[in-house]
């Protein structure tokens, strides 16, 4: 049972990693990278490390995504000022 969960999560993580690298839309790619961390935190629960799972869920999928989005916003703004 647990092995099935791990295999499904693992395949999803690999797919999400490819999507993060090859999706055309940068916003979707960033969300995919956040999803990798979220699934990794489930795997940490299976590995009996709840402390790491909490940290990964809060930092990896929460704050890292937010920092990426803020940086994307800044870069887009730069692009907009160029075009004006």
């Amino acid at each position, binding site marked *: 049972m647990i092995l099935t969960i791990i*295999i499904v999560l*693992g395949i999803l993580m690999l797919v999400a990693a490819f999507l993060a*690298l090859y999706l055309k839309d940068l916003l979707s790619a960033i969300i995919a990278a956040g999803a990798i961390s979220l699934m990794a935190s489930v795997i940490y629960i299976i590995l009996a490390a709840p*402390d790491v799972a909490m*940290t990964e869920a809060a930092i990896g999928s929460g704050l890292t995504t937010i920092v*990426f989005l803020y940086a994307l916003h800044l870069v887009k703004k730069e692009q907009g000022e160029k075009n004006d």
Partner: protein
Amino acid sequence: MTIITILGFLLIIIGLWGMLTRKHLFRMILGFSIIDTGIHLIIVSLGYIKGRTAPIFDSDLSTFDAVHKIVDPIPSALVLTAIVIGLAVTALMLVYVVQMKRQKGSLDISDYEELKW
């Protein structure tokens, strides 16, 4: 849990491939964060022992037989700090990319020719 170790190695390989082949600076940082996740998975999976529980003492886990009942606490502690540092380093890289964009107006790595040979 050998399968999770293998998963971590695969994530490292995918991340490295992305860092080497993609041209967009944001994608390279995404590749870096994928490598990060892979490394953390490997370290935690090496500390796992089959059938054991988390290293937190409560009514079910007394201190006497803890040696035979808990998983290794040291990899968890190391990864805990490594995740926070990973966030800080990623943020620094992103700010650097924003600054590069301001200086040169491009997010494509092949437009930065100063270090080419």
